[in-house]
């Protein structure tokens, strides 16, 4: 099944806690099951998104890093 991303959040350059906060805000507007792609450059966002996913139950499906940009794929 192809993963259709509902929206991409460009959070590059932002520092803690903004990447998590912007994601949480965006999540409120999303439907259950929708996917969101996050692009961030804060290295702290790696442990933050993992902890956030565990705490909120939103599934962190993929996490990759390319050229200092961290990409997270999350399903509400």
């Amino acid at each position, binding site marked *: 099944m192809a993963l259709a991303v509902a929206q991409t959040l460009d959070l590059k*350059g932002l520092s*803690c806690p903004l990447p998590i*906060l912007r994601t949480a805000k965006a999540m409120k507007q999303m439907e259950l099951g929708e996917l969101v792609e996050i692009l961030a450059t804060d290295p702290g966002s790696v442990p933050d998104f993992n*902890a956030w996913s*565990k*705490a909120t*139950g939103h599934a962190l499906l993929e996490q990759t890093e390319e050229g200092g940009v961290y990409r997270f794929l999350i399903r509400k």
Partner: protein
Amino acid sequence: MAVAVRPETAVEPIQVTMTETAPGEASGKPVANKVTIILAHGDFESVMAAMIIANASVAMEQETNIFFTFWGLFPLLRDDVRFSGGNVMQKMLFGMNRGGISHLKTSKLNFAGIGPAMFNALRRKYKVASAKEMLEIAQEMGVKLYPCQMTLDLMGFKPEHLIDGLEPPAGAAAMLGFSTGGTTLFI
């Protein structure tokens, strides 16, 4: 000289059972939790820490409360409020310690405002939100902000001196009531 050594046999090894899933994880629903921050300090770094933790906590979908007391109450004053208080001591206190979240001083290296100006320049460079921005986002996200009733009385603050959107002033017992069963942080 003989040294009393606690016999090793007296210490029972503690059995820890590790489960594969965290509590609540199996059902797919995370355990609801809450965080209460008691902000007793009004300096730049304390207020920043409180705002960052509160915003992270509310982003983690935890019920989040902040109880603002003593120096910590000053950031809840409106930025444009200058002389408050009913008596000379309260007026002097306020005159020497301007309120408002845009007027925070660092506890170290303040240098009459040069320190905070430098931290704010660094903060902008590294795209860290300001305390004021974070307070506004926190309110928008549903963080509950409780001013301490006793501090309001002590400092001579009136409701019109405070920013909008606050919970009714609370006391220590009320704070202990809403913090029960969650994580409580004192800053």
